């Protein structure tokens, strides 16, 4: 694994707060030259530490009033191929994330819907009908915040 010094971590911290901050502003804050900042950002991207960028959208303004997290337990695991389930669940457009987890559920899904009625439609028609889907628990998201992490 490559090593990273405190300037890399400080850079990540600043970019987590504002991904659109200019290299000039970053250079000034970290007391470095602009080319040095570019080099560090490029290295972090090439090494996959910064694995990508994401557009932050106002879900409500786009008509998605509800976000629900589903815990799904597969039933009769023996007959079901995990890959089949994963392929089918990933193809549902309203399913934003799919995580394979270990614990009281097998999968954790993040689902967006226009409203509760729309969510019910997605749950009944698309999620419950997935190959192998068993016990399902739903929790409606009220708030979320991403933290800078240990940097």
């Amino acid at each position, binding site marked *: *694994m490559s090593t990273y010094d405190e300037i890399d971590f400080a850079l990540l911290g600043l970019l987590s707060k504002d991904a659109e901050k200019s290299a000039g502003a970053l250079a000034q804050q970290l007391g470095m030259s602009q080319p040095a900042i570019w080099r560090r950002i490029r290295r972090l991207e090439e090494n996959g530490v910064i694995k990508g960028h994401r557009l932050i959208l106002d*879900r409500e303004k786009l008509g998605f009033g509800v976000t629900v997290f589903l815990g799904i337990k597969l039933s009769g695991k023996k007959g079901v191929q995990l890959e089949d389930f994963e392929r089918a669940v990933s193809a549902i457009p309203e399913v934003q994330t*799919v995580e*394979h987890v270990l614990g009281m559920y097998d999968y954790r899904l993040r689902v967006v819907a226009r409203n509760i009625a729309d969510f019910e439609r997605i749950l009944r028609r698309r999620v419950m009908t997935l190959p192998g889907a068993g016990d399902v628990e739903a*929790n409606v998201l009220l708030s*979320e915040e991403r933290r800078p992490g*240990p940097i």
Partner: protein
Amino acid sequence: MLDDLDRRLLRRLQLDPAMAMADLSEISSSTLAVVSRRLKRLRSEGVVLGKEILIDWSKLGYSVEVSLRITLDKTQSRAFDDFLAAARGIPQVIEIQTFLGRVDVRLSVIAKDMADYQKVYRELIIALPHIADIQALMHIARIKSDEVLPV
């Protein structure tokens, strides 16, 4: 209201937030001027709020990620406020979500390895105020993580 062009632009930009204006205009068969005006409007109307970087913590040596599903003691009127304020003080907590459902709060916690996780859990997590119950889900794999909204 959004029209077809806005939606097309948002779909492309969600997949590649760094996409060049020229490519966007070609894909949407609109002129550069039109695309640039649309993007400006999506910003000024607050549909597009900004961009964020995605950090791959495993590349920084944090190979363990655990989802802690927490039920709070709601007989305490300040349970949520106290808990959230304290959770924000733990650097290993990278995400905090609150829910309506069986679970009140979920924390995403990262650690370098299982020994490190055990330390964070015993010394920091357990000490958080007003916890009634904790369940842990260990992350095995991310199957889908783009968080794209089906606009």
